[in-house]
C-alpha cells in the first residue's frame, strides 16, 4: 500500500508543481520518490497484506512491482531529456506516475473490479501520452487508435467480468477460484473466461488482437513507446498470469487450446512482419508483439516455474528494450530518421553506443551470454516441462526468424560508411542508462540466479 500512496502523492505533487513553477527540482524529486517507493515495496517481501479483500500484496505483487519501479526509474532517466523540451513536462510526468499506480494495482489485485480499475488507470494515461506530440499527425492517430481500440477491449473485459459474476456471485478471486475450480461449469463461465482472455490479450498485444500495436508504437513519441513496450507489457502479463493462475487454472483444459493457437499466430505474425520493416521503430514494435508470444507460452504452461519465467523475461526484455529505444531516440534526434539505415557506420563514430546496441540486439534475439537467452530458455523449459514440445520447436523457428532482423541492425552499425561520420553526442543521463542496462543484460545473462530465486 505504501507504494501506491507514495506514487499517488508523487503524481499529485508533480501536477501541482506546474502551479508553483517547480520544474528544476522535479526530476530529482521523482527519482527519489521512485527509489523510496521501491524500498517500501521490497520491505513488503514475505510480508503479505490484504487490503479489504481487494488488493493482496503477496510476493508476486512485490516482485513485479519492484520490477516495474526499476524499469520506471530507468525510463525517467531516459525520457527526461525529451520532456524538458515540452512546455508541459509536469503533466506528462504526472500521467506516467499515475499510470504506474495503475500498473501496481494490476499486479496486486485480489478482486476483479481492482483489475479493471488498474487497467483503466494505466491505459487512460498512456492514451493521452501517445497523443502527446500535438504537432505530429501520427501521434494524434496513434493516441486515437489506442483509445478507441483499448476502450473496446475494456468493454470485452467488463463483459467477461460480468459473466463471471453471474456464475460465481462474487468479484473476489478466491471465491471465484472455489466456484470454478471443480468439474462442470456452465457455458456462461467459459464464455466469461474467453471474454476476459480477449480483453487481456489486447493489452498484451497477442495476435489476433495485436493490430493496434505497430501503428500505436510507431506513431507515439519514442519515449512513450518505450514506456508502452516495457512497463505496460510487464503489468499486462503480470495481471494476465495472476488472474488465470489464481482463478482459472482448474479449467485450464478449456482455454489452453485457444492460447496455444494465439501463441503460434503471435510468434509468426510478429516475427515475419518485422523482417520487412525498414523503420527501426516499427521493427521494434512488431518484435514487441513477437516477444508477447514468447511470454504467453509461460502462461500456457501454467507450471510452478511460470511466474518466475514471466518475471525474468519481462524484466530482461524491458531492460534491453530501454537500451534499444534510448539509442533509437538518440540516433533519430541526430539524423532525423528512424530507419535502420540511419545506423550505418555507427561503430566507427560511436563504438561504445554500438556495443550497447549490439548487446541489446543479441539479448532480444536470445543469444548467450546475454539475459535474453536465459529468458527464452526459462520459457522453453517450463513449456517442455508441461509437455508442449511441439510448441517449443515452432517457437525456435520463430526465434531464428527474429535473429535475422535483429542482426540487420548490428550489420548496419558495423558497415563501412562512404564518408566520415560525426560522432553523436550522448547526454550524461543517457550514458548512465546505457551503462546500467548493458551491464545488467550481461550480468543477468551469466548469473540469472540473482533474480530468479525470489519468486
Amino acid at each position: 500500500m505504501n507504494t501506491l500512496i507514495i506514487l499517488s502523492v508523487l503524481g499529485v505533487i508533480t501536477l501541482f508543481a506546474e502551479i508553483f513553477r517547480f520544474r528544476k527540482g522535479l526530476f530529482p524529486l521523482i527519482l527519489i520518490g521512485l527509489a523510496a517507493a521501491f524500498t517500501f515495496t521490497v520491505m513488503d517481501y514475505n510480508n503479505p497484506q490484504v487490503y479489504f479483500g481487494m488488493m493482496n500484496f503477496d510476493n508476486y505483487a512485490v516482485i513485479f512491482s519492484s520490477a516495474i519501479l526499476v524499469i520506471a526509474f530507468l525510463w525517467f532517466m531516459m525520457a527526461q531529456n525529451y520532456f524538458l523540451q515540452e512546455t508541459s513536462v509536469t503533466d506528462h510526468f504526472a500521467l506516467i506516475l499515475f499510470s504506474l499506480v495503475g500498473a501496481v494495482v494490476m499486479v496486486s489485485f485480489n478482486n476483479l473490479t481492482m483489475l479493471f480499475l488498474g487497467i483503466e488507470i494505466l491505459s487512460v494515461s498512456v492514451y493521452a501520452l501517445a497523443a502527446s506530440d500535438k504537432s505530429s499527425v501520427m501521434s494524434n492517430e496513434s493516441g486515437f487508435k489506442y483509445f478507441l481500440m483499448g476502450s473496446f477491449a475494456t468493454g470485452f473485459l467488463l463483459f467477461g467480468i460480468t459473466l463471471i459474476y453471474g456464475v460465481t456471485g462474487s468479484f473476489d478471486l478466491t471465491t471465484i477460484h472455489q466456484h470454478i475450480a471443480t468439474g462442470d461449469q456452465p457455458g456462461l463461465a467459459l464464455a466469461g473466461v474467453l471474454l476476459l482472455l480477449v480483453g487481456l490479450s489486447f493489452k498484451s498485444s497477442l495476435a489476433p488482437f495485436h493490430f493496434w500495436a505497430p501503428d500505436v508504437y510507431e506513431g507515439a513519441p519514442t519515449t512513450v513507446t518505450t514506456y508502452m513496450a516495457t512497463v505496460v507489457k510487464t503489468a499486462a502479463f503480470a495481471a494476465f498470469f495472476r488472474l488465470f493462475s489464481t482463478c482459472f487454472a482448474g479449467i485450464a483444459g478449456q482455454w489452453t487450446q485457444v492460447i496455444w493457437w494465439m501463441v503460434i499466430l503471435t510468434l509468426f505474425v510478429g516475427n515475419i512482419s518485422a523482417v520487412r520493416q525498414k523503420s527501426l521503430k516499427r521493427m521494434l514494435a512488431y518484435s514487441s508483439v513477437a516477444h508477447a508470444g514468447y511470454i504467453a507460452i509461460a502462461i500456457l504452461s501454467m507450471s510452478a516455474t511460470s511466474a518466475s519465467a514471466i518475471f525474468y523475461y519481462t524484466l530482461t526484455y524491458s531492460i534491453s528494450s530501454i537500451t534499444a529505444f534510448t539509442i533509437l531516440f538518440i540516433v533519430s534526434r541526430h539524423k532525423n530518421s528512424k530507419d535502420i539505415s540511419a545506423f550505418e557506420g555507427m561503430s566507427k563514430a560511436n563504438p561504445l553506443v554500438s556495443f550497447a546496441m549490439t548487446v541489446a540486439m543479441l539479448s532480444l534475439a536470445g543469444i548467450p551470454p546475454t539475459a535474453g537467452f536465459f529468458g527464452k530458455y526459462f520459457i522453453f523449459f517450463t513449456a517442455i516441462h508441461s509437455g508442449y514440445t511441439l510448441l517449443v520447436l515452432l517457437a525456435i523457428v520463430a526465434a531464428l526468424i527474429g535473429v535475422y532482423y535483429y542482426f540487420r541492425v548490428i550489420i548496419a552499425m558495423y558497415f563501412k560508411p562512404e564518408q566520415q561520420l560525426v560522432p553523436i553526442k550522448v547526454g550524461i543521463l543517457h550514458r548512465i542508462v546505457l551503462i546500467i542496462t548493458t551491464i545488467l543484460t550481461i550480468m543477468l545473462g551469466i548469473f540469472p540466479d540473482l533474480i530468479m530465486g525470489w519468486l
Partner: protein
Amino acid sequence: MPTITLLILTFAAAFIALFMPIRYGNRFAFASSLAIFAYSVYLFITFPISPDYQNVVNYPWIESLGIHFKVGMDGISVLMVMLTTFLTPLIIFSVRKSEPRPRAFYSLLLFMEMAMIGAFVSMDGFLFYIFWEIALIPIYFICLLWGGKDRVRITLKFFIYTLTGSLFMLVALIYLYLHTAGQHSFDIQALYAAGKSLDAQHQCILFWFFFLAFGIKMPIFPLHTWQPDTYTEASTQGTMMLSGIMLKMGIYGLIRWMIPMLPLGFSQNSQYAMWLAVIGVIYAGIIAFTQKDMKRLLAYSSISHVGLIAAGIFAFNAQGLQGSVIQMLSHGINVVGLFFVVDIIQSRTGTRDLGSLGGIRLKAPFLATIFAIIMLGAVALPLTDGFPGEFLLISGIFKFDSITGAIAGLTIIIGAVYMLRSYQGSMLGETSVWTDNFTDITLAEKTILIPIVIMVIVIGVCPNLFLRVSEPAIMKLLSGM
C-alpha cells in the same frame, strides 16, 4: 584447477588484447597464445594414461536449474585442447599488418579460442551448450568485419543455419534434463543415464536432433550448403579457425555427447547417418575436383575429409573411433597449412584461380616444397599425418560394412586427384603473368609453415604418441554401450 586456468588465461588474454596499444597488439596476442600452448603441452606430457577424467573442477553455477560449471579433461579432450592451442598462435601470427582494426581481430580470435577450449572440456551439458553458442559470436564478427565482398548475406546465413542446429540440440538437452533421475541435473553422467533410460523411439528422435546440430557444424551432407560460401568469403584467419578447430567441435560432440547418451538411437540410426557421411565424401570430392578457386576447392575437400571422419565414428569400433581422433588432429593441421598457402599465393598474385596460376615452383621452391608436404599429408601418403587416420577410418568402416568401406575407400583416389590437380595448377608448369614476380616465402611465413610441416611428419611417423593418450577413453566409450 589446470582446466580452469586454461580458460581464465585465454579469457584474460582476449580481454587485454582489446585494449593493448596497437604497436604491441600482435606481439601480445601471439605471446599469450604461445604461453597458453606451452601450458597445454605441459598438461599433455603429464597426462596419465587412464580412461578417467583428470583435473575436474565443479562449481555450482545456477543451482535452481541444476547447472554446474564443471570442466575436466580426458584423453580425447586433451588432444582437442592441444590442437586448439597449437593452431591459434599460428593463426594469430598469420594476421597481416595491413588488416584494419587489429586489436578487435586478435581479441575475437582469442575469445573464440576460449569458447572452443570450453566446449572441449565441459562436463555439464548446459555449459557445453553455452560454450558451443558463444563460439559463434566471435566467428560471426570475424567473418563480417574482415571478409570478402558478399560477406553480409553469407555470414548471416551461416549464423542462422548453425543456430538452428544448436537450438534443436538445446531442446534435446532440456528433454534429457527433465528425465534425469532424482534432483534434475545437467551433469554429463546424469545425462548419460537419462538418455539410456529412454525408450528406443525417443532416443531416435533425440539422435536426429543432435545429429542436426553436429551435422551442420561439421558439415555432413546434406547440411553442408553454408560451408563453401562461408569458407571462401571469410578472411583466411576466419576460415582457418572454422576449418581447423571449430568443425572439430561437431565431431567431438558426436563422440562425447551423442553416442554415450543415446545408445539405442545410435545403433538404430548409425547406418543412415553413415550413408549420408559417405555420400558427402564422394559428392564433395567430385565437386572439389571441378573447382578453379583454390579456397573453394579446399572447402569442399574439407567436407569430404570430415565425411570420412564422421563415417568412421558411426562405424563405432576401435579403429573407427581412434582413426577419427587422429584424423581430427591431422585434418586440423593440414587444412590450416593449406589455407595459409592459398593465402600466401593470393597475397602475392592477387588471384586464387588455378587457371591463372602456374609455375610458382620455379620462383618459390621453398614454398613449393612445403606445399607439397602438406598436400601429401592431406592426400594421406604413408609417413604423413593423413595416413594413420585414413587407414584406421577406412578399416573401421570396412569392418562395419564392406561395401560402404569400399565406397569410402574411393576417397583415397578422389582426394589424391583434386589435391594433385590443385598442386599442378598452381605450382607446376610455366609461370603466368600473375606469378612472374612471385617472391619466395618470408621468415614470418616460414615460422608458421615449418611447425605445421614438422607436425605432419611427426604424426605420420609416430601417431601412437597421441593415440595412446586417447585409447583408454575410447575403449571406455566402446565398452560402456
